[in-house]
């Protein structure tokens, strides 16, 4: 109340507090200052708290107890040997003996057993014969704090099930392909898909981005088309990513289907929704970002270097190639890594151009259907059930660790290669 009445705004202009009013006025202003400082600090703390909660939620979902039940004891099938040690032929025999003949023939038709890898057959045996099934999954916090209650519940509801502590992120998860059974699912083919897409994206975006940046900084004079290109790049950086997806769908998937499906090169079993389309779309998406970063790096190269080069009789391109670009390299590398991490995490455009969510095989050419890590996260998060949440969380850890590593490299490079002029 007193703070309010002391506010200068309530007084006629030119009012100056007198006598005891002065001290009260100062005390009230200090109090207001302290309160607002607390508000400013807490808005920052809320942001940090959100980050902490996000990480907590992910970790909480990734580890914890699971209750596992099997249809058949694997020891009975193999006479005590672990399944992994069996040869491919033995595994096929087990499969033949334990699944209906029709189903066995269907597997053979999908991909002949003679061509399948041992891992693929092993996965079929685990999926169809052993049938390891998670009947209940618990979060990390519960698992640590309420162990007795979980044990009691599992004993009561699933007497045959075995309770074990499970990390959803593990070596099999990183190498296995997608599966409809959460326990057997992995991000192996998604990781490979992401790498393929990033490779194509960067193959296009790095040279075009660098040369585009060179044009804007070194070659262009202040003409109308220079200003048009400049404004255009800045606006493109603000276009929502899903619009790029729409562009990719119409241009690369549909109009250029002959190229992107590989029909021009004799590939017949594909449509336009391929790695190539995804890489091209992503290249258009990261290009503005790339050019903006390259320009900043080139602008930081001092003018004196260029003048020295010209003074020695170098041509424009010789100056750019031998002096400007090498000196701008740290900045260009940082910008490239930032573009890579943007492309790694981008999901919406790939959903639009149709990265299939259920692909169980590993891509081996640019004309293949594919999936990427963020799409797997999207797919698993939108499925009901705690186990899908858990593998979504495990995939998120894979993605975030990759991005963190990339960004740490960028910062390290920037600090190590930085030159002072």
């Amino acid at each position, binding site marked *: 109340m007193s703070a309010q009445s002391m506010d200068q705004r309530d007084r006629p202009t030119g009012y100056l507090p007198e006598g005891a009013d002065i001290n009260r006025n100062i005390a009230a202003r200090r109090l207001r*200052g302290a309160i607002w400082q607390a508000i400013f*600090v807490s808005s920052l703390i809320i942001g940090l708290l*959100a980050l902490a909660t996000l990480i907590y939620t992910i970790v909480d979902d990734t580890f914890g107890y699971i209750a596992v039940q099997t249809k058949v004891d694997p020891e009975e099938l193999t006479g005590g040997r672990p399944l992994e040690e069996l040869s491919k032929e033995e595994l096929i025999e087990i499969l033949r003996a334990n699944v209906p003949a029709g189903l066995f023939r269907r597997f053979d038709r999908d991909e002949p057993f003679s061509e399948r890898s041992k891992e693929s057959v092993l996965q079929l045996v685990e999926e169809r014969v052993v049938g390891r099934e998670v009947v209940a999954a618990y979060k990390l916090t519960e698992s640590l704090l309420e162990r007795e209650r979980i044990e009691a519940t599992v004993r009561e509801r699933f007497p045959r099930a075995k309770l074990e502590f499970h990390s959803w992120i593990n070596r099999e998860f990183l190498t296995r392909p997608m599966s409809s059974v959460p326990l057997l699912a992995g991000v192996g083919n998604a990781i490979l898909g992401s790498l393929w897409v990033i490779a194509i994206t960067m193959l296009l975006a790095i040279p075009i981005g660098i040369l585009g940046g060179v044009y804007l900084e070194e070659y262009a004079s202040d003409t109308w088309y220079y200003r048009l290109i400049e404004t255009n790049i800045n*606006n493109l950086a*603000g276009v929502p990513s899903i*619009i790029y997806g729409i562009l990719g769908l119409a*241009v690369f998937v549909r109009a250029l289907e002959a190229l992107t499906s590989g029909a021009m090169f004799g590939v017949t079993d594909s449509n336009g929704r391929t790695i190539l389309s995804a890489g091209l779309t992503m290249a258009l998406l990261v290009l503005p970002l790339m050019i903006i970063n390259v320009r900043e790096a080139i602008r930081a190269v001092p003018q004196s270097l260029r003048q020295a080069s010209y003074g020695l009789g170098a041509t424009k*391109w010789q100056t750019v190639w031998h002096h400007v670009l090498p000196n701008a390299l740290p900045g260009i590398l940082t910008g490239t890594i930032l573009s890579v991490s943007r492309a790694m995490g981008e999901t*919406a455009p790939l959903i639009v151009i149709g990265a299939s969510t259920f692909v169980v095989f590993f891509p081996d050419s640019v004309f293949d259907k594919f999936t990427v890590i963020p799409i797997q996260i999207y797919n698993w998060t939108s499925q009901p059930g705690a186990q899908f949440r858990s593998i979504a969380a495990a995939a998120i850890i894979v993605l975030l660790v990759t991005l963190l590593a990339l*960004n740490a490299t960028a910062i390290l490079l920037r600090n190590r290669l930085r030159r002072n002029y």
Partner: protein
Amino acid sequence: MEQEARVAVERSTPLSISPINLRGKPRFGENVIEIIVFVCGAISIFTTTAIVIVLFQEAWLFFGSPEVDLAEFFGTTTWQPETGRFGIWPLMTSTLITSIIALMVAVPLGLGAAIYLSEYASPQARGYLKPILEVLAGVPTVVYGYFALTFVTPVILQGLLGKGNVEIYNMLSAGLTMGIMILPLVASISEDALSAVPRALREGAYGLGATRLETSLRIVVPAALSGILAAVIVAMSRAVGETMIVALAAGAGPRFTFNPLQAAETMTGHIARISGGDISYASIQYTSIFAIALVLFFMTLLLNLLSGWVVRRFREVYE
């Protein structure tokens, strides 16, 4: 006479000194490189042109089909492609509601954080707080979608408001999470604007006896207003175009509602869901997503142009 001769000598000097005119020497490689470099810069023009052509072409087909007309598109409130009803308002309102919730979170928090970082924090504190905030900006949006669905809705919203009152998919959780996502953007652009205000203005305020708060709110913030406004507009444009959070958390299926606790699909969410399924290129559903994308494109373009205009119009230039 003498003077004329000197002028003539001066004029002829450059030519007489260099026997070969290097300037005139044709450099084929240099010219080719110049063309290549120009083409690389101009590819961005191709991208924009392609976006505009593709959107208009397919949207033209959409509005040209007998089921649709412009008045229905902008004037009715049901979006049901199955029954041939295409009123964009349900998608538009949910886009606006989630974006406004996001701004209500991100603007005060982001501005508060920016004022703290620029006016209160010591250089060391700023040195490690800013990168942490940037980590928040680098998290892919699909991860935020997961966060909205597995934490914000069940733990915060259903915990505070009761399980029966909040739908599993709702606009509020999508909006709140989106607010957290764009908070670092608002904070970082505003912080740049605040830090750019010259030291002399602050010293002047302190010299007149102002407290730190009075200096921040009455001197520094008004001086940096153009940058802060631009941050808000850029944030709005990001929120409108954001896809993964709303696709995961705001619900599937357009619905005309103003209740943020209910599920309603946004424009971006609808595009993602429809195009993610198997649709035939000839269907009206396929062309309809281009019409939505066209509206979305112009909304974000308008916001981006507006932010550029605000910066130019309201910028205070200090020597």
